[in-house]
């Protein structure tokens, strides 16, 4: 997450300083109401919280320097109205969902994450007392037919999200699946801190909304169960490594002798990448294969023939690198914008104090004139400072798209990895078939020399032929899987390209409109002061 979202505190002089500044104002003033900045979503700014002391004399209105709230609101709205991207899934102002085009624009799947609650894990015999964990309320509104209801809620903990993410990764290989939030290894004390909880809640919400924005994944059974199924999440967690190692050790002899339940290799298993302990042998084989691939021995029959893909991957890699660079520079830019706004505001305040000082101590008219001039500059500086702050808030929103796409690139890389590992499986199986074939040939050749047959050899040949058949099936399954993943890659790539195109053009447009708009507003502020002081220009020369 970009670290510049909460940039609003500590910007301005202390509240006490502001409140103590009272200016005698001869001119009749407009509304002088205290206001809270509608923009600040988190902290309320000291700048904005100036209470008008009702006992003050009517003409000492400090607030004449500050604009009424309608000004700030009006600006904010007008720029956002220009931004014409459809905001799906009820995205709030501070989290623009990627404007993907759903199959039908009437479908909606709106997800909200809220209300973190601490819960206690039921104590089991081993651990006295329980461990605490946090659940979040996941509220869904939808009209998609797969769901049983139109509005419902469930409680889920972070571990459930991990499960969901893992299951999706298994079922949707080749897809650009949004990445789930990090696991954050922190102490339990930190776990319960409000700030951490809020961060996590926001991250979860973003993640689920991205899933809901994906045209294929939004209709997945895994997501549906996560959002809808009451009670414990019915998705099976991928078992831990230790037990799988155990399983793997038991499985080994069976794999070696080609015996499995019903004599058939579970095609599903083949469709999965070799994982953890369960497929020790498979891992060894695939490793051997990948080594021989790399060392360029016998060219494997199934080559990654898609030259176009290789090019595409390289291009995407370049894009990712440049994107990362731009993202960094964007952060620096935001910081610089924040700094200039801050300094402008501080200078404005210093001039406000000077103005007050001159006004109070004025002996000569020239001082009063100067105080009046200074007040104009002070007011303008303070206004400009606020404009910079608003500009920056908007800039952050727009440029956040850059950061979002860095996450998307990770998903893309995952999808390509799926493809590579599927290909590796195919290649491994092909090698096995090839070696089986040669072994069978050798045995048959040897057996034929012995008249009447060689019982043990013949039996061996039968076994090998059986293994061959099974392996052949596995290979077909693997090839199907590989093709499927390739197809997914292709479709996703098309979708990605289009979305990237639209998203970035939208981002550029928003950024430019924003910059131009605020620059114009600032120009107006300063134009007034320049006109008011234009008399001096003639005197000076």
């Amino acid at each position, binding site marked *: 997450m970009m670290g510049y979202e909460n940039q609003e505190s500590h910007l301005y002089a202390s509240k006490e300083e502001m409140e103590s500044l009272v200016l005698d104002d001869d001119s009749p003033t407009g509304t002088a109401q205290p206001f809270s900045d509608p923009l600040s979503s988190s902290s309320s700014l000291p700048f904005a919280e100036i209470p008008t002391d009702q006992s003050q004399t009517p003409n000492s209105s400090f607030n004449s320097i500050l604009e009424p709230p309608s000004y700030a609101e009006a600006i904010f709205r007008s720029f956002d109205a220009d931004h014409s991207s459809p905001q799906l899934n009820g995205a709030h102002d501070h989290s623009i969902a990627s404007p993907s085009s759903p199959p039908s624009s009437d479908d909606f799947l709106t997800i909200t994450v809220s209300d973190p609650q601490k819960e206690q894990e039921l104590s089991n015999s081993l651990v006295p007392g329980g461990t605490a964990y946090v659940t979040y309320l996941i509220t869904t509104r939808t009209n998609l037919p797969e769901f049983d209801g139109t509005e419902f809620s469930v409680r889920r903990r972070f571990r459930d999200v991990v499960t969901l993410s893992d299951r999706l990764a298994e079922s949707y290989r080749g897809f650009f699946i949004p990445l789930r939030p990090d696991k954050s290894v922190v102490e339990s004390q930190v776990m319960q801190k409000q700030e951490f909880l809020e961060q996590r809640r926001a991250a979860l919400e973003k993640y689920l909304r991205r899933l809901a924005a994906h045209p294929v994944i939004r209709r997945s059974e895994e997501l549906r169960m996560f959002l809808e199924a009451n009670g414990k999440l019915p998705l099976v967690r991928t078992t831990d490594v230790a037990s799988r190692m155990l399983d793997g050790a038991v499985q080994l002899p069976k794999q070696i002798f080609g015996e499995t339940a019903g004599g058939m290799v579970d095609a599903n298993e083949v469709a999965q990448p070799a994982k953890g302990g369960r497929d020790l042998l498979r891992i060894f084989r695939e490793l051997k294969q990948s080594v021989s691939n790399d060392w360029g021995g016998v060219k494997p029959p199934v080559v990654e023939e898609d030259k176009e893909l290789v090019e595409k991957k390289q291009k995407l890699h370049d894009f990712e690198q440049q994107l990362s660079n731009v993202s960094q520079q964007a952060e620096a830019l935001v910081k610089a914008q924040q700094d200039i706004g801050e300094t402008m505001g501080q200078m404005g305040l210093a001039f406000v104090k000077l103005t007050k000082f001159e006004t109070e101590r004025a002996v000569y008219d020239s001082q009063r004139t100067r105080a009046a001039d200074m007040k104009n500059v002070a007011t303008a500086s303070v206004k400009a400072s606020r404009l910079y702050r608003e500009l920056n808030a908007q800039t952050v929103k727009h440029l956040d798209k850059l950061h979002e796409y860095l996450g998307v690139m990770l998903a893309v890389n995952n999808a390509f990895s799926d493809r590579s590992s599927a290909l590796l499986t195919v290649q491994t199986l092909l090698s096995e078939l090839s070696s089986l074939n040669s072994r069978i040939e050798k045995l048959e050749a040897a057996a034929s020399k012995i008249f009447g047959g060689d019982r043990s050899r013949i039996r061996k040949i039968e076994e090998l032929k059986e293994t061959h058949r099974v392996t052949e099936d596995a290979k077909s399954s693997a090839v199907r899987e590989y093709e499927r993943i390739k197809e997914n890659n292709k479709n996703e790539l098309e979708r990605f390209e289009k979305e990237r195109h639209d998203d970035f053009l939208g981002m550029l447009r928003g950024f430019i409109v924003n910059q131009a708009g605020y620059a114009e507003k600032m120009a107006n502020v300063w134009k007034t002061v320049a006109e008011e002081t234009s008399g*001096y220009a003639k005197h000076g020369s």
Partner: protein
Amino acid sequence: MNTMQRSGSGSLQSPRSPSSQAPFLSVSVTDPAKMGNGVQAYISYKVITKTNLPEYQGNEKIVIRRYSDFVWLHDRLFEKYKGIFIPPLPEKSTVEKFRFSAEFIEMRRQALDVFVNRIASHHELRQSDDLRIFLQADEQTMDRARFQETGIFKKKPADLIQIFKDVQSKVSDVVLGKEKPVEESTPEYEKMKNYIFELEDHLAEAQKHAYRLVKRHRELGESLSEFGKAVKLLGTCDDDALGKAFSELGEKAEIISIKLQKEAHHLLMNFEEPLKDYVRAVQSIKATIAERATAFKKQCELAETIKFKEIDLNKYRLTRSEKLAEAEREYEMLKAEGEETSRRFDTIVRLMNEEIVRFQEQKTSDMGLAFHEFAKGQARLSNGIADAWRSLLPKLEAHSS
């Protein structure tokens, strides 16, 4: 060229013809040039004087002066014209690195130009011999004059500190039983002193932020430039409309970055520098306040001495001592000195009263101009930025379709 002649060019009336009888004195400080090598290197300036005043040789004279020559002039005027707020000098550079930076040199040149012009347009100061020497003397004479002055007339830092202590009426002196602080305490003068001291604080703060603002403009310019470069590189990843859009954005960002750098410079020369000048002017007033305090103290001390002398005199008269004659002579001398001292002090008071009015008026117009330039610059910058960004939009629309 931003030669801001904020206090006028020194001419009383613009000359209608070379043989016009209207007196004028116009000075400019130009053409900084680096002289010498290594540690002893320094900057020299051309000082060009145009005048028809009879005291000056000819219509136009060009001399070469360095910073320490200006310091000499300032110090001489400060010594001679007590009560007048001598125009302030730009600071000595403390940081070696910047001593020869183009920006520093230009800022200094501008400040020195303003300095001399203010002297040339001050009705009393312009008549000073020292100014004439400064504007006319050859380098050797100037060097000699400068050399003579060091150490003899310069105030030692310890003296200054003592004076300021007196001026600020340290309570501690009274508490510790030291001599009662001799200080004027007319309410009006007190008010003015307090005003000056507080004004310095306020101004210093404003100037500090103004200086930071200059830096911020530069920083924003730099980061925008880097951002633009990065975006341009991103644009090379795509051959299509998106790539072009990125490239165009990157270009614009770099253009705007240049505008920001320009404005930073303009801000420095036309807003921050005048503010700094204002601070220096206030410090100059503080120095004059110190001078007045010194004069006042001297007057009081002399008055006391005279009183004691009177007592002695009477004693001698009564005892018909032979010391009487001597004492009478001394007494007369002291009385004369006392009158002179009082006269000097009264002059200072009178001059200060005039000067404060002049100061306030001058500062109003100086700052008025500075504010105007500031606002103009900001408006120009913002308009430039808005135009630059807006010019991208039609192309962007074309890319989107």
